[in-house]
């Protein structure tokens, strides 16, 4: 490091500025465009931002569910090796033993799509098409009485689904800390 550079850094430190130091930090990141990163960008916001094209109905979803989901979650979403997905309404407050399912507890329908797409089926994650994920999501919501028979889920309709327990949460960050 040259004397003048060192002097500049010390001057910056004395002035309480990190600008000179930041300029001197190494940069090893390689630029990439968002389009080239698209295969990894599977984030979906609770407002539906990030939901892909595609569509599926509860009836279509029932077929996918029977083939890919029922073995762990039960034929009707009653649970088994995997968690229960259906029911539990009215069990959240004491003294009931809480049954926290997609229908009774999950605040956002977008999370169902997101989790199924990134993690399910358990032994074959990321193998469902977007149409299949929409259909299974529609079926799980339908079994919980949240989506009607024949109602297709897509990036517009799914984002508009209002879950029963949407307002059941208090966010402790950042107010508590």
């Amino acid at each position, binding site marked *: 490091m040259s004397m003048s550079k060192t002097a500049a850094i010390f001057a910056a430190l004395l002035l309480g500025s990190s600008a000179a130091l930041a300029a001197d930090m190494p940069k090893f990141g390689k630029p990439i465009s968002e389009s080239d990163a698209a295969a990894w960008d*599977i984030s979906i916001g*609770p407002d539906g931002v990030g939901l892909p094209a595609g569509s599926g109905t509860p009836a279509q979803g029932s077929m996918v569910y029977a083939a890919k989901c029922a073995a762990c979650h039960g034929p009707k979403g009653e649970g088994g090796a*995997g968690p229960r997905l259906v029911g539990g309404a009215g069990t*959240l407050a004491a003294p009931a033993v809480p049954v926290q399912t997609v229908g009774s507890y999950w605040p956002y329908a977008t999370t169902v799509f997101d*989790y199924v797409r990134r993690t399910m089926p358990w032994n074959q994650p990321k193998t469902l098409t977007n149409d299949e994920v929409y259909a299974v999501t529609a079926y799980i919501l339908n079994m919980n009485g949240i989506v009607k028979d024949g109602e297709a889920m897509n990036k517009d309709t799914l984002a508009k689904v209002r879950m029963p327990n949407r307002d059941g949460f208090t966010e402790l960050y950042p107010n508590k800390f």
Partner: protein
Amino acid sequence: MSRRSVTQQDLPKVAANGLIDRRVLLRNSALLAGAAGAGFTGIVRAAAEPLAVDDWSMKIGTGVQPYSTPSRYEAKVIRTLANPTNPGNNQARTPHHLLDGIITPNGVHFVVARTGAPDIDPAKHRLLIHGMVRQPLVFSLEDLMRYPMESHIRFVECGGNSAPMWSKEPIQADVQALHGLLSCSEWTGVRLSTLLDEAGVDPRAKWIVAEGADAATMNRSIPLAKAMDDAMLVFYQNGERIMPINGYPLRLFVPGYEGNMNVKWLRRLKLVDAPIMAINESRQYTLLLENGSAWRFYYPMEVKSFITRPSPTMQMKGPGFYEISGIAWSGQGRIAKVEVSADGGKSWGMAAMQNPVLPKALTRFRMAWQWDGRPVVLQSRATDEAGNVQPTRQKLIAERGAPRTTPPVTGFPMGHVNAISSWGIDAKGAVSHVYV
């Protein structure tokens, strides 16, 4: 030096039922000369057997191995595994009752892993930083490891650690089962803020979605303020590369925050303006309260402690001197003090804290104790430097409502359970888990 049998009255008491002034252990006081010189035990013991030369002193031992493993006599110092045959929800708990000091050996670091450990080739692994940044960037591991590194000793604790304490009846199990989703290591890596500065964070960004490369592709929303404060990307755990099940080759580290936010196998960081409401922040890692509403975004692990020795399932060896030992920690800074009670919380004595006492790290505490053989209830109570005091069980219940079930010991009826633990010792010396 003259030796004499010592009675309980000889030792400087600080609380009921035989707790002894910590200065005896700190060895910086005239108390030591009197107490230690007096012999401490207070009981007359039978003379030792004559010594014989052991077999292992008379032959060449085992040759050195490229990588050491513990003595075969320590075969019990292992993790307990929940659902070992179902990688859908592997849990492995640290045997704190068999460890001492503050560092958790890598082989017994706790684990919660939903889809097992991915077999990641470090030469092919990439980290993407994108979203609300001036320039999206991709880093190879080699790139990341060229930045200036730093090391910090920090704990990791699952948000669901100590959940078995949230039961109608005290669950009889050892501290490994009750409090084992907790470990402490020296973590080495680079500051996350360095990389975020390089990408150029949009001032409107408030959160970072961190995502792993595992089959679950686990993701969590991290407050940007935390990311810019003390978050790190870590490569090393206690001097060696992170174990595969703990996140090899790259883990996000957010000191003091619940374990699940320290995303393992990190592949992506996306800057966003609002939390993503991933399953692990909208369904899991929420705390259901008595009235049916729930807390979420409950990040720092609260001040907590427990006694590791003596602890449930252990058997006392009769009346006399014991060292009570345990660990204390807080996600909000250093431990300021640890107090110990031998009468179920009616009277408290200050424990000795062993150096180093580090922020967001386990702190080892010790207390000298002369047990008279009568039933007692041992407790520890930690206070952190922010002034947070470990609450009683009753206080936690008053805030959240009483436990509704007696769950299996591997169940998760509640998160962030940091209440004082009570270990009962009966007249026969059996140690059990009790509520007071």
